[in-house]
């Protein structure tokens, strides 16, 4: 059976396992209809021209988590930022792991989507926010239909989340092939701050497909910093759908560190609903082999005096392929918008590919919008210069690549995370030099 048919026909069985007497029931039912109608995207759609899901959709995925699988912290410690005190929401094969997690209900809620979807006290919030900013496309609707588990974070107004929050999904391979559909809802009240680090980590060579949806609401003057670490193994594919609604004078940033996996697709959408908003989208992609990373971004400016800043750097080795498709929409009302986008790429081999496409739709006349895209190779003169100072070929190349990506790293606000990313990059580039540039 095709995966689509399997999913659609499993919906009734899924409904038997969840409480249908909730507001979410109608949303789920509508969503499965939408998915049935739209299905998975194909290369015929403009937004999916360079990314084919065909190969990853062929596996016979199990779509419901079956049994609880325990992991020892010591075996997976390296995937955590463990030198920093954080809240943790950890899932193993789609099921919540209480012994690896550290949640809270003290002034702020850092807990589970499954609680928020079922407990009466969260009902008003779910009704107000759940599935509101998410687009109703096939993949998001599929996630909505099967939405049951994920992270639920609620920061009321004038609160500072006292430590960063890590959301980590492990897959262990106790199924031959596994599909995961985490659903996160993050609400940040007026003047409140939160920092979140998200990671998907497969511990198996069995195929894993994750179709994740995250909705984020940043109320007036809220600060949201979201960091995505994508450094998964060769058989793990990720479709990340993130939707952020920002209100007046809020600042939201998303950093995406795409260092590997099979197919990684990031649909990152910012919707500005107020004046004086700043949206920041930064990314570093370093991949090789036959890995594929596709960044599809949207920033929608609807009101005056807002800004957006996009800076994506890509380094592609061997037969790796990359896509950057950055769309900026500026409504007629959104005068004095400053929207900047830059996408710089280095191809390390003749067989590596990058498709980079800016898409600007500007209806206001008093705006500053710029976009720039470069594709190049490492500079031989710079390599010789470094080598002539005693720095070996591999280290010189790594240093140049690191320097190329460095300005994106400099905006990471958590020092421990920055040093972790530094180490990941050094490992990626096969060198053992400290990059505290």
């Amino acid at each position: 059976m095709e995966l689509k048919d399997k999913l659609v026909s499993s919906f009734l069985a899924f409904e038997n396992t969840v409480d249908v007497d909730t507001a979410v029931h109608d949303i789920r039912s509508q969503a499965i209809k939408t998915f049935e109608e739209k299905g998975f995207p194909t290369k015929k759609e403009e937004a999916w021209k360079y990314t084919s899901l065909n190969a990853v959709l062929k596996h016979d995925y199990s779509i419901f988590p079956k049994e609880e699988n325990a992991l020892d912290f010591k075996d997976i410690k390296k995937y955590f930022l463990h030198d920093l005190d954080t809240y943790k929401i950890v899932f193993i094969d789609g099921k919540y792991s209480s012994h690896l997690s550290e949640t809270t209900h003290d002034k702020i809620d850092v807990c589970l989507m499954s609680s928020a979807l079922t407990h009466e006290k969260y009902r008003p919030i779910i009704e107000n926010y759940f599935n509101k900013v998410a687009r109703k496309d096939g993949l998001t609707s599929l996630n909505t239909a099967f939405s049951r588990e994920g992270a639920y974070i609620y920061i009321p107004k004038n609160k500072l989340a006292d430590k960063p929050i890590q959301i980590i999904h492990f897959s262990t391979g106790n199924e031959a092939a596994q599909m995961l559909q985490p659903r996160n809802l993050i609400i940040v009240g007026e003047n409140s701050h939160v920092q979140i680090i998200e990671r998907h980590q497969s511990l198996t060579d069995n195929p894993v497909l994750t179709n994740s949806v995250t909705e984020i609401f940043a109320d007036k003057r809220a600060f949201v910093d979201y960091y995505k670490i994508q450094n998964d193994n060769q058989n793990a594919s990720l479709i990340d759908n993130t939707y952020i609604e920002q209100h007046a004078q809020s600042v939201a940033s998303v950093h995406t560190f795409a260092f590997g996996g099979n197919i990684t697709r990031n649909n990152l959408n910012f919707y500005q609903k107020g004046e004086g908003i700043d949206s920041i989208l930064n990314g570093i992609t370093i991949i090789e082999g036959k890995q594929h990373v596709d960044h599809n971004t949207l920033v929608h400016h609807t009101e005056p005096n807002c800004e957006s800043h996009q800076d994506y750097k890509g380094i592609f080795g061997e037969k790796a392929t990359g896509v950057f498709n950055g769309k900026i929409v500026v409504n007629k009302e959104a005068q004095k918008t400053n929207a900047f986008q830059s996408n710089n790429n280095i191809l390390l081999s003749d067989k590596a590919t990058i498709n980079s496409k800016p898409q600007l739709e500007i209806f206001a006349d008093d705006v500053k919008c710029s976009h720039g895209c470069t594709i190049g190779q490492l500079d031989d003169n710079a390599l010789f210069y470094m080598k002539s100072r005693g720095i070996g070929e591999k280290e010189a190349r790594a240093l140049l690549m690191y320097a190329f990506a460095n300005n994106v790293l400099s905006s990471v606000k958590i020092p421990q995370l920055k040093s972790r990313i530094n180490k990941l990059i050094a490992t990626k580039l096969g060198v053992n030099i400290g990059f505290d540039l």
Partner: protein
Amino acid sequence: MLEIKDLHASVEGKEILKGLNLNVKAGEIHAIMGPNGAGKSTLASIVAGKEEYEVTKGGILLEGEDIEDLAAEERAHKGVFLSFQYPVEIPGVTVTNFMKTAINETRKAQGLEEMPAKDMLKKIREKSELLEIDRKFLSRSLNEGFSGGEKKRNEIFQMAMMEPKLAILDETDSGLDIDALRIVANGVNKLKSEDNAIVVITHYQRLLDYIVPDFVHVLYDGKIVKSGTKDLALELEEKGYDWIKEEINA
């Protein structure tokens, strides 16, 4: 220190060095002068190990060892230093961290431990004072947005940090005003010892007023055609290169 014997070298099939001989002993300063296109910068790049050049005949010995098969970084580990005519801009790498990496990678290759951070800082402070370099300058990206003079001063700062056995200064004087020239020359002179050697490549006699050579060579059409003492540089300054060309062609 450096012995170049009958060196022939070409790039993309075009022969640039045509049988060059040069013998530089420890403790000596040699100046190589010559008209544009004579092969001066090619010589500097070949000694430093740039791969685009093909050595077709002859050899380069450093302290008696043939270095032809060594990569640029291996030559640096053995004490070769090139002050670039056109230093490369490397955005994202600060001067300080470039030097830390260069020194520690060199120490690693020599089987030494990394230099302790305290010693490194001390050395950076000393050498930047020697070249009268502002501390703020050291945290800027390497050569990015530097003026011509700042780039050259930064090259000599790197030389001071690396403490090479053989330093080749390729037109270090170009882009320097007279004050900067004095500072750079003073730095070079302080680094000079009985154990190292310096080859100064220049068009003009001006630099040689400050860095006084033991020998002056004229490079023309891929060969050293005339050698002498520092008086030769003065003569060249006064009379230009035409009389040498005429001598050769006669």
